């Protein structure tokens, strides 16, 4: 009986392949016992709840603070003295405190990030160390010595916001939806962008510019970073490294590493494969010809050409050349392969494997690696960059400390006993300023690695919530933008699910700047040692014990951990599956990946940081391990995402391990061969692309355009938006959540901080003012608040104190001769600062500051300054062409004890002609006409559209998603529901049509409309419904510009360029050509000279040079002088030519 039931219940997956027929979809035709995971997407919110949207930044920073710092301290733990050999100072511990304010007189030291933002301070925490050092004959231990301040990443485990509830966050004036992951440095929010690079310590086989195969490894250790190659030249193989002047023939290199027998060398590189042996023979021959036979000969050959080792020992006796070679080979070439006690065996085998990979690629081109493959990339995050920086700063700190200690110890007789503690404190703020400078300028210059990187940090864009969020998931590539190679820019198949396929900028950075997908996680370093141990326990044979014969047997797989060979196994599949079992059970860190590469006969284990990975549901025997019961428990809040991980129901796969997996997208696609099940396919898109409804119906570039435009949309920025004083802030007065949502929208909180409004859109032609994507807006809608936005701009000034004791002051409004305060000063209150709520017009004074005229004069003594100084006006005035209102004023002190006055000026703008709008489908357009409601067409129910869009926008753009958005939106409005347009899912068109039909509308969403102008019916039916429209930040008001007269450039006396300098409007080459072609010579003359840089000059007709006052200084005469008009630029040219010894002569002729 039992058996029978069992048979019935067992699903025959293959039979259900026909899921296209409606009755069979989602397994509806199957029996009830079959476990489909209906709401498996629920794992996604659970994932985001525990991991957050920017967890990669925060994890990385936490790893730096908790682990990396200690490693760095350990690596540089001792400071000794050259003078006193008995002295030592040892760092025993390091930790980072909680963020503190620096005000000397503060009682409560704790600081909120918002205070740092407002007061232009740095949100940083002290770094404290514990030391142990000698004082005379004593050993002294001290704890908690501050050595500098570390800017703290918001929401990291050192940040006060972490783990706080909404109420507390509100008290801290912080938005609960703000993802954190950035720094506040000198009041600005700075993001350290994720940097993409080729993975470290891994072989990459590729061809150089001459099509020669080469294997390269970038070795990276704490001490050193260098690149080693095994390269081919004329069919011969060499080891190449910067520290060795010549290419080392590979046999010489191997001999130097102790593999002296030619047979062994051949075995190590070629195994039994005759093909490879043949290709390799020539190298052995060459070495024979060179006469290098022994290890010593090889070392001497290398040592004679080694560059760096020479200068290692200062003023010591000269050591033999071969020792240089040993030093070079042991610690510089392939530095990441450890050489312990001069045992070169592992390194020799590593080189041999590299050679073999080169041989393989020489024989078969397919064995070349793809450097654009995402699995070969590593992402460098804030933590890694900071740790590089800190190590550099700390080394400098130790160096300075040592110099100072030496200086003191050198003094023969000291009055007091030397205490190194004073020197520690005396160190200055080198570390603090180093961090602040690097983060605020973005220049990462590390002396150790000769690394000079600019543009690492960016100011967090607060244009909209999405732009801030988008910035946190951005990845910038190290690749040069100017090079014209398509490879790095192309969409990689291995990007699936890891990096968003849509979200990349257009133009020069296209494809180089990428964005993380929704579920992506970036790993941090995991300790290697335990993993090695586990490997040996699982039957891996140590590589150092093997010869080439065993290494390259057909059935033998080389096991490597983070690129280092650790051994071989003959049962790779069993090894890998056991390893995975251990990982699923939590014995190995969840972010350690393992996979088999059958081409290379290798098993690769990775535990290094910077790998991209994402979670997936584990499938065993055709069954998903996650069942509906699990999801139910999750929904009820009994378990969280981590529970799924620890139970082995869900696991992280990185790009390489994904290759080893057979992943089903839906439950019904699972077969017995399946290893994993996708949590939800829409997670392959990032946060920005996730806003688009029905993106799978759009032409792909449209989604890319929307990703760029979503970041320019005006909306709500954060819950604390009205408490912020940002340089420029755009806010929408009445933002709405979209009628057609996506699951991503809910997950990232776009429905709580939206940027747009649901506009009733009629797709029809109207008036001709809608060509080229222009939109027609309904005036009544604008009257009622559609598209209304606010612009807040910060005006800030410092009330300085100068070294000579003088200081700036604030003055009240002056009274004019008629006894009335001039209009310009009317917004001011008696304290010299305008009052909140006051209206200001162009050039009105906001802060009436006055500076002492002798501020820089240091001859005055600080005490006596007050009486004698005079002040000159240095007011801060309002610059916009339209009036604004003072929103708020902040008076505070900065870290440098200067008084800071910030005023926030607000404008409220209703849409006008030329303002830019966009739907969520990359369809932007400007407002072409604003039409009174009475002139607008209306449907049977009296609805007149807010926006009229020209249908010509559709055929070439192919944004079908927009049409479906309209349909779903319309059905949603009628039914009173919010519809979903989630990628690869969402409300179905058929269902939406049915809703329309049931409510008496046409199934297609098209309606009979009546012209508001004639009152007659239209001859056509109009597609009418709500579409979510975004108002973009580009507004006419910020761009309008005209000038009659105005400023001129000093050098050329031509009108200045650009709106910001009130510049002239250029009559360019093409315009000039048109006028010349028409024959309007005088117009050209007037435009290009008379109205530009007219200059009267006296020219001597005898010598052809320019004189002055009717006098030629060359001829020393006043005869034959003519006054002519030339452009000042021409006069300048003549003089510059003269200056470089060219004599331009002006010869004049009589005009008729």
């Amino acid at each position: 009986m039992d058996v029978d039931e069992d048979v019935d219940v067992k699903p025959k997956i293959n039979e259900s392949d026909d899921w296209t027929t409606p009755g069979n979809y989602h397994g509806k035709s199957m029996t009830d016992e079959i476990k489909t995971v209906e709401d498996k997407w629920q794992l996604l919110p659970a994932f985001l709840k525990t991991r957050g949207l920017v967890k990669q930044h925060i994890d990385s920073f936490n790893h730096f603070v908790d682990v990396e710092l200690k490693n760095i301290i350990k690596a540089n733990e001792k400071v000794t003295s050259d003078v006193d050999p008995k002295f030592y100072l040892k760092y025993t511990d390091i930790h980072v405190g909680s963020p503190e304010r620096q005000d000397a007189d503060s009682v409560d030291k704790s600081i909120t990030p918002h205070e740092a933002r407002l007061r232009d301070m740095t949100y940083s925490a002290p770094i404290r160390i514990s030391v142990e050092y000698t004082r005379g004959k004593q050993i002294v231990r001290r704890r908690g010595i501050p050595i500098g301040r570390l800017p703290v990443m918001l929401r990291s485990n050192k940040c006060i916001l972490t783990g706080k509830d909404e109420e507390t966050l509100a008290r801290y004036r912080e938005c609960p939806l703000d993802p954190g992951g950035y720094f506040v440095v000198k009041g600005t929010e700075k993001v350290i962008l994720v940097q993409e690079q080729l993975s470290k310590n891994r072989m990459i086989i590729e061809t150089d510019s001459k099509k020669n195969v080469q294997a390269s490894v970038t070795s990276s250790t704490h001490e050193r970073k260098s690149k080693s190659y095994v390269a081919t030249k004329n069919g011969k193989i060499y080891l190449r490294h910067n520290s060795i002047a010549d290419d080392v023939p590979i046999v010489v290199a191997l001999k130097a590493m102790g593999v002296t027998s030619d047979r062994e060398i051949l075995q190590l590189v070629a195994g039994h494969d005759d093909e490879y042996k043949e290709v390799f023979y020539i190298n052995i021959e060459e070495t024979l010809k060179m006469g290098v036979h022994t290890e010593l000969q090889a070392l001497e050959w290398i040592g004679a050409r080694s560059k760096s080792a020479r200068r290692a020992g200062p003023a010591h006796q000269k050591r033999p050349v071969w020792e240089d070679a040993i030093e070079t080979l042991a610690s510089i070439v392939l530095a990441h392969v450890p050489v312990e006690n001069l045992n070169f065996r592992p390194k020799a085998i590593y080189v041999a494997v590299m050679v073999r990979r080169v041989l393989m690629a020489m024989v078969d081109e397919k064995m070349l690696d793809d450097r654009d493959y995402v699995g070969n990339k590593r992402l460098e995050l804030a933590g890694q960059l900071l740790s590089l920086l800190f190590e550099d700063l700390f080394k400098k700190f130790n160096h300075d400390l040592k110099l100072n200690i030496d200086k003191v110890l050198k003094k023969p007789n000291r009055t007091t006993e030397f205490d190194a503690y004073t020197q520690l404190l005396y160190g200055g703020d080198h570390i603090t300023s180093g961090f602040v400078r690097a983060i605020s300028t973005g220049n990462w210059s590390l002396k150790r690695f000769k690394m000079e990187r600019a543009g690492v940090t960016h100011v967090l864009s607060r244009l909209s919530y999405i732009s801030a969020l988008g910035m946190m998931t951005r990845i910038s590539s190290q690749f040069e933008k100017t090079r014209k190679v398509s490879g790095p820019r192309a969409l990689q198949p291995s990007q699936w699910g890891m990096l968003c396929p849509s979200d990349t900028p257009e133009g020069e950075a296209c494809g180089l700047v990428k964005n993380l997908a929704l579920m992506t996680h970036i790993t941090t370093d995991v300790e290697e040692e335990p993993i090695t141990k586990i490997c040996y326990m699982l039957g891996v044979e140590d590589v150092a014990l093997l010869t080439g014969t065993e290494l390259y047997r057909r059935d033998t797989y080389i096991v490597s951990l983070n690129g280092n060979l650790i051994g071989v196994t003959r049962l790779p599949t069993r090894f890998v599956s056991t390893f995975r079992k251990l990982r699923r059970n939590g014995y190995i860190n969840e972010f350690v990946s393992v996979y088999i590469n059958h081409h290379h006969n290798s098993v690769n284990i990775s535990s290094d940081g910077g790998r991209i990975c994402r979670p997936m549901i584990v499938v065993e025997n055709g069954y998903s391990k996650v069942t509906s019961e699990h999801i139910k428990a999750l929904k009820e809040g009994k378990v969280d995402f981590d529970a799924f991980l620890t139970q082995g129901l869900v696991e992280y796969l990185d790009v390489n391990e994904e290759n080893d997996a057979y992943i089903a997208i839906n439950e019904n696609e699972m077969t017995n061969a399946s290893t994993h099940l996708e949590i939800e396919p829409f997670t392959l898109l990032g946060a920005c692309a996730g806003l688009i409804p029905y993106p799978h119906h759009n032409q792909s570039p449209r989604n890319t355009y929307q990703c760029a435009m979503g970041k320019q949309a005006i909306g709500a920025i954060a819950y604390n938006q009205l408490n912020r004083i940002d340089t420029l802030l755009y806010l929408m007065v009445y933002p709405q959540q979209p009628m057609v949502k996506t699951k991503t929208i809910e997950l990232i909180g776009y429905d709580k901080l939206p940027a747009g409004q649901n506009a009733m859109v009629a797709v029809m032609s109207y008036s001709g003012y809608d060509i080229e994507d222009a939109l027609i807006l309904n005036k009544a809608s604008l009257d009622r608040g559609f598209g209304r936005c606010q612009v807040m701009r910060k005006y800030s000034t410092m009330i300085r104190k100068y070294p000579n004791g003088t200081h700036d002051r604030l003055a009240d409004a002056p009274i004019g001769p008629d006894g009335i305060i001039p209009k310009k000063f009317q917004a001011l209150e008696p304290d010299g600062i305008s009052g909140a709520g006051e209206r200001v017009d162009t050039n009105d004074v906001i802060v009436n500051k006055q500076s002492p005229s002798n501020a820089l004069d240091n001859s005055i003594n600080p005490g006596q300054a007050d009486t004698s100084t005079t002040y000159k006006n240095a007011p801060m005035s309002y610059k916009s062409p339209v009036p604004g209102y003072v929103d708020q004023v902040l008076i505070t002190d900065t870290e440098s004890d200067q008084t800071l006055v910030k005023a926030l000026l607000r404008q409220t703008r209703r849409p006008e002609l030329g303002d830019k709008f966009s739907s969520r489908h990359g369809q932007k357009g400007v407002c072409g006409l604003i039409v009174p409601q009475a002139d607008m067409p209306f449907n049977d129910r009296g609805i007149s559209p807010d926006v009229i869009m020209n249908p010509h926008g559709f055929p070439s753009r192919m944004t079908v998603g927009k049409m479906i958005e309209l349909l779903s939106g319309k059905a949603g409005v009628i039914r009173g529901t919010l519809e979903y347009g989630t990628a690869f899912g969402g409300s179905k068109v058929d269902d939406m049509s049915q809703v329309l039909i049931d409510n008496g509308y046409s199934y297609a969403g098209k309606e009979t409309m009546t012209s508001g102008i004639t009152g007659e019916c239209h001859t056509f039916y109009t597609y009418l419904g709500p579409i979510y429209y975004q108002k973009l930040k580009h507004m006419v008001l910020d761009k309008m510009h005209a000038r009659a007269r105005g400023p001129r450039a000093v050098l050329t006396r031509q009108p200045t360029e650009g709106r910001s300098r009130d510049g002239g409007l250029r009559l360019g080459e093409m315009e000039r050509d048109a006028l010349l072609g028409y024959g309007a010579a005088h117009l050209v003359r007037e435009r290009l000279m008379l109205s530009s840089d007219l200059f009267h000059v006296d020219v001597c007709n005898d010598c052809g040079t320019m004189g002055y006052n009717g006098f030629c200084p060359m001829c020393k005469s006043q005869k034959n002088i003519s006054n002519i008009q030339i452009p000042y630029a021409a006069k300048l040219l003549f003089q510059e030519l003269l200056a470089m010894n060219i004599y331009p002569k002006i010869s004049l002729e009589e005009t008729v």
Partner: protein
Amino acid sequence: MTSNSIDQRRIVRLDKERTHNIHSTDFPGNYPGENLEWNLDSFKQACSIDINSVTNEDCEFDLIGVDPSIANALRRVMIAEVPAIAVENVFVFNNTSVMHDEVMAHRLGLVPILFDANRLEHFEKGDNPNDQNTIVFTLQVECKRKSNVAPGETNPDKLYENHKVYARHFSWVPQGAQESDPIFTQNPPRVAYPDILITKLRPGQALDLELHCVKGVGQDHAKFSPAATATYRLLPTVKLHKPIKSEHAELFRSCFADGVVDVREDENGNKQPYYVNPRKDTVSREVLRHAEFDGIVELGRIRDHFIFNVETTGSVQPVDMLPRSCAVMKNKIAAIRDGLNVIVHGKQDEEEEGQEGQDEDMQE
């Protein structure tokens, strides 16, 4: 079917993808041998207005027998030119709420004010406000904590007093003669809907505003428009070229809104649909999608039968909308007549204007 008898000239035909015959054809010279010159008697005979329903919010009436231009003119006037009263100037003495002054003023402007606009003089920009052209409200609200609140209470309704500012907080301040004027005292100016939420406050925040309301038209700003919707649709018709097969009768009925089509059984048990209530038809054109009715059903709408639907914001009673819009139109026509007189006679006919003015008053 009832509609078969309707003059085909009056019908706008609705096809699957477009409409036909949208223009009226009854103008002189269009049909040979017919005299279609306009004359008052035939117009009087053809034109009628039937009022279907009137509530406090909206009213529905049929306007039959006029050209679309006339119906549209009425609709446009209702939207844009029937005057109403709205807040125009806001004087902010104190505003410590989170809402900015401009946004607050904008919101206040959109609150419909219930007072007969005809009793107020027009207020042009630059005019001095006086008791003849301005109504003043004050909005003074201060949010306070309630006492005796249970600890741990999070419901703002229980925690705070006045934490929501509604339109009912407007209080009218009579100006000058308004205090004694029976027009004002008997029916004092007030908001049409007292439960419009203006903003929310928290303890310590307060509003002290003075709102100056003036008369204006929707043309200038939508807040002055008394019409929430002022619209019309044409009466639908259905023409059957052949009778519907009995088995398709139910399908035919399902293609229309409920109550539009009635299916009756004759003595032979044959079902036959009857188009009984065209007024309820939403013209979804669903019937055109079915192959069964191809070539049988012709949808149409009667071009000169306008079903008006007027819903007001509350500042004007829906019943008043039609007479008021007519009055505005009469004024406009008078202005045109004056203009024409100036063109034709070179001067304004003063006498006639006086009469016209009286006429108008009486009609209202």
